[in-house]
């Protein structure tokens, strides 16, 4: 896992290494400073000439400045390295996601991908910063201080032998106990927040059923439960300070006692007073570095979860790949399904499509009808190879779709998805997704064809009207017509409309189909619809039921041969035109 993530450091290896080097410099100086300070204290104490005090002072100032420089440079390189690492991680994830096929996309919900690209990366960025700054610093600080303490303090350093293991053990135990406790609490906490959100969203239901008191009670007991767990976890962590405090105090008393004894009994020959103060400082440094280490340990384990989620995105292999020596030209718009069976994932028990066979000639108009869950969408998604068949083959222009270059195939097969979407930007920008180099005339032409021109011209800004995120400022029917125009701009050999005129009124719907017949006769048109009226005049109508073709034929044939088709037809005729 770490290896996968490390790959994204790339050009930020240098600042990362520089950070470590400068931090090392800073640490060395930091360790030397108490040594010089002890000298300064001695100088003052023994009334050394003022020049000597000044020189030692200047030394100290110089060291402080160097340490400042080292620390400052490290601060900047560290920020650069970690922010850069985060940038690369986001970039790599994003790029990999762009390679995903539909079945990869189905695996991750879009909100979870957003979280992974934002919050999770930020978590990793923070812990990376922590690691290159502190994870190096603390052990070094610890080692240097111990070395200095032993060389300077000699016998005085024995107090550390007692204190360090106590602290290490204590901190380790706390971290080990607290972490699972916190993980449990946070899971519960997230659940609680989810249920609050659910409540806020469903407030009309809550109030509609007068369930305010019921909700309050439910929340209250959930909140109490979390409070209990949280308190337990927090109380474990709250032991940190007293343990640290205890070690510090023990250390101070120990050094003073031992120091007093040694200095006086040896007459200051073995250990002198300055050393006692220096030892007190080193003691602090050693303990602080241990404290920091335990914090890093906690921080990293917290971000482990984020790392795992990022890796999942990075390691997901696109399930569709371009073939070697791909065919790059789609000859015509003929489509053949040969014994096609399909399921969305290997684990799925049921096939979404079962043994489907049909032949569509180039230029035909084909209607597809069937209830929700009858796999109409699954059927057409196999044509531009959004998914691969499980068994059998799909042929476009006489060639198996798996032999095409994916991009060439999709440029020839335009599809308007059921869950279509416009992006924030002007209408023109949105339409140019179909063809980046389309001229204004071409754009107008396709919009006329999709009956979108009329309403676009009523907007004050016309084709430069800005579409808000999610296309909220155009109506459902308008959005659908824009999406059709966008697909038409590709000048495709095959055009697939997956329930793409459901919000368009029947009159306009008819105009759109008329336009298709007259202006793009060579293009094969596949129209999935709920309304019989939308497919009535097609050359061929396929009736889907439960993943199988239930019937096929013209409107007239089906009225007499297919029960399902006749049912729907009658129901719609009696019920009046459905009009969503």
């Amino acid at each position, binding site marked *: 896992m770490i290896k996968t993530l490390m790959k994204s450091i790339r050009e930020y290896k240098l600042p990362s290494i520089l950070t470590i080097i400068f931090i090392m410099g800073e640490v060395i100086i930091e360790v030397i400073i108490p040594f010089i300070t002890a000298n300064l204290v001695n100088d003052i104490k023994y009334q050394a000439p003022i020049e000597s005090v000044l020189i030692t002072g200047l030394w100290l100032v110089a060291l402080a400045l160097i*340490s400042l420089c080292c620390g400052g440079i490290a601060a900047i390189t560290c920020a650069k390295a970690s922010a850069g690492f985060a940038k690369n991680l986001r970039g790599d994830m994003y790029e990999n*996601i762009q390679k995903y096929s539909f079945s990869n996309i189905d695996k991750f919900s879009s909100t979870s991908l957003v979280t992974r690209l934002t919050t999770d990366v930020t978590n990793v960025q923070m812990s990376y910063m922590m690691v290159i700054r502190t994870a190096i610093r603390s052990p070094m600080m610890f080692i240097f201080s111990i070395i200095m303490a032993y060389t300077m303090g000699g016998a005085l350093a024995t107090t550390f032998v007692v204190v360090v293991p106590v602290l290490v053990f204590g901190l380790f135990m706390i971290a080990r106990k607290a972490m699972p406790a916190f993980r449990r609490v946070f899971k519960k906490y997230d659940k609680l927040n989810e249920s609050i959100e659910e409540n806020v969203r469903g407030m009309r239901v809550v*109030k509609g059923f007068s369930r305010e008191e019921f909700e309050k009670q439910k929340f209250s007991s959930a909140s109490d439960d979390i409070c209990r767990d949280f308190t337990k976890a927090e109380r474990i962590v709250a032991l940190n300070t007293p343990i640290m405090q205890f070690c510090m105090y023990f250390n*101070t008393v120990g050094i003073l006692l031992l120091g007093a004894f040694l200095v006086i009994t040896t007459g200051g020959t073995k250990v002198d007073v300055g050393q006692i103060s220096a030892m007190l400082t080193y003691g602090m440094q050693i303990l602080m570095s241990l404290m920091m280490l335990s914090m890093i340990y906690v921080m990293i384990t917290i971000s482990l979860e984020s790392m795992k989620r990022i890796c999942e995105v990075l390691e997901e292999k696109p399930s569709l790949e371009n073939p070697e020596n791909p065919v790059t030209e789609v000859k015509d718009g003929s489509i053949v399904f040969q014994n096609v069976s399909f399921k969305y994932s290997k684990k799925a028990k049921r096939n979404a499509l079962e043994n489907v066979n049909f032949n569509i000639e180039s230029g035909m108009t084909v209607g597809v009808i069937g209830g929700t869950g009858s796999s109409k969408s699954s059927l057409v998604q196999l044509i531009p190879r959004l998914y691969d068949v499980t068994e059998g083959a799909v042929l476009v222009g006489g060639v198996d779709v798996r032999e095409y270059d994916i991009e060439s195939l999709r440029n020839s097969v335009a599809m308007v998805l059921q869950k279509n979407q416009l992006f924030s930007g002007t209408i023109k920008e949105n339409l140019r997704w179909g063809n980046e180099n389309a001229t204004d005339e071409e754009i107008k032409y396709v919009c006329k064809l999709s009956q979108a021109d009329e309403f676009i011209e009523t907007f004050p800004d016309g084709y430069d009207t800005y579409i808000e995120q999610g296309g909220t400022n155009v109506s459902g029917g308008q959005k659908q017509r824009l999406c059709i125009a966008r697909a038409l701009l590709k000048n495709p050999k095959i055009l697939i409309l997956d329930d793409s005129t459901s919000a368009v009124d029947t009159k306009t719907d008819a105009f759109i189909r008329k336009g298709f017949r007259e202006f793009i006769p060579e293009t094969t048109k596949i129209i999935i619809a709920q309304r019989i009226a939308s497919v009535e005049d097609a050359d061929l109508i396929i009736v889907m039921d439960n993943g199988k073709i239930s019937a096929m034929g013209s409107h007239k044939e089906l009225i007499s041969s297919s029960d399902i088709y006749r049912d729907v037809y009658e129901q719609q005729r009696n019920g009046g035109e459905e009009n*969503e």
Partner: protein
Amino acid sequence: MSKPNVPMGRSAMAGRPRPKFNGNTLKRVLKMLFESYPVLMPITIACIIFSAIVNTLPAIFNQQIIELIEEWYVSRDWASAKLEIMPRIITLAVLYVISLISFFTHTQLMAYITQGFLSKARKKMFSGMQNLPIKYFDTNKHGDIMSHYTNDIDTLRQLVSQAIPAVLQAGLIVISVFFIMLWYSAWMTLVVIGGILLLTFVTKTVGGGSAKYFIRQQKSMGKAEGFIQEMMNGQKVIKVFCHEKNSINDFNEINNALYEDSKKAHSYANLLGPINMNIGNIIYVIIATVGGLFLLSEGFTNISLSKAVGREVVFGISVVIPFLNMTRQFTGNVNQVSQQINSVVMGLAGAERILNLMDAEPEADDGYVSLVNALIDENGNITETDKRTGKWAWKHPHQADGTVTYTELKGDVRLFDVDFSYDEEKMVLHNIDVYAEPGQKVAFVGATGAGKTTITNLINRFYDIADGKIRYDGININKIKKSDLRRSLGIVLQETNLFTGTVMENIRYGRLDATDEECIEAARLSGADDFISRLPDGYNTELTNNGSNLSQGQRQLIAIARAAVADPPVMILDEATSSIDTRTEAIVQKGMDRLMQGRTVFVIAHRLSTVKNSDVIMVLEKGRIIERGNHNSLIEQKGKYYQLYTGAFELE
């Protein structure tokens, strides 16, 4: 939105304008704390103060011990020195033990108090929220409401558990060290203060830069998040149009901007550490040098607090050396205070938002007419009962003469000349008259924004009318208790909201005392039983995330079952079957018809087939009823309805 919480307040808060210190909020938070823990809070604070004071004393003992060592080491007489040194070391150890105990006590207590307090705040906030009118939820973004429970509670936690105790403690240490320093020497104190001023100036400059870029980082983060969200939602469209490369290029641009801001923000923040430490070192050197100079200069006269009170400590080495230690302690704690002040201000801003939610005006309810179970004899006499009889009555106490009358609940709803506006400026409804007799099916048809849903919002009093009258079984609905009014109205909304829990629990939401059989019966009636029993765990299937494992149509069916189990005399179906395909709807329709039988029903639907068999259909346009009548008469009128029906018109 199952986004994990940002652990610290900083990133979440940075996007908001810089908060100001608000003393009132602090007072209220403290008051709440003391009220919740009248015994523990004072103990905790006493412990904090105590450990702060005890913490300054060891420096003095340290110094005394070192001095003693200096005095005695020439003599090498440990036995005599011991007599003087040991008592001090023991005192020091005792002080330490006391300090440890108080540290332990207050950290443990604080953990206990903080969580209890937060839980209390959460509960108070939640129950306050339950009582807020729908308007609050319609006018506030759900993300904003949620952030009270996540970000604001987090900052409040910081405030209570860390910031306040830390400021208290560090502040006390600063003050006591300050006085001890003054006790020894005012001149030296002045030098320390000068150094501190320099330090605060530098950290303020650097900290300001850091704050500025954190805000920018937050903004670019928001931008990146928006972009990512849009692209992830449209990922399939990107694939279909082979638009991957453009999308990567656009992302890289945004990603780079985010990188720049993040780099700068963290650079500044990282600089603070080394700056603080090394300026601390330099101040230390200055104090040492100045102290040394004072010691050497003959004419130096010390001014000190000890002198002022007549117990002068002679300026000498024994003053300069402890001063050096105190300088360290002083700068360290001043830093601590200045860092924590920031969290205090941010925490208070969060607390203020929480308090605002708690203070928000609850939904007013002056109703006094209540809904009771009723026994109705042959003569139509109504008596109240505790048991569920299937019959209901409005209990109407008359204040004037103290009598109580009962009116049978029939489901007769009438609107007379109703006007309404959401914001008191733009009227959404004009002169609406609707008469729904018991058992009638009344339909509203019209474009989005024509005011269909608004009418139903008025009937269940999610909003109150501006002008006109609404009568329910002849009673002014303003007199009816809101909870009882709503209990008598079942609603099924277009946007289905299910709750985490089993399918059964979700259906039972309609009537909490319904048995399993009753719930299943309701599901059968509404046509949901078929698919539910085919779910892997049937009625015990767990629903999460608003039932994301079900299709929109299936969710609507559960919502219909939920309303059915409540068995209300009046039902409001707002696009209740919009996501069910026509063929399935035909099946559901039978169940729906059964469900609607004997009830007054208000139906809103785009699909005219759904409303065709209504007793009355009202066509709404821009808040006015422009046509009314049954299907046949409306077709004859050849007006708007006719156009819709023939498909010449598209509804949005």
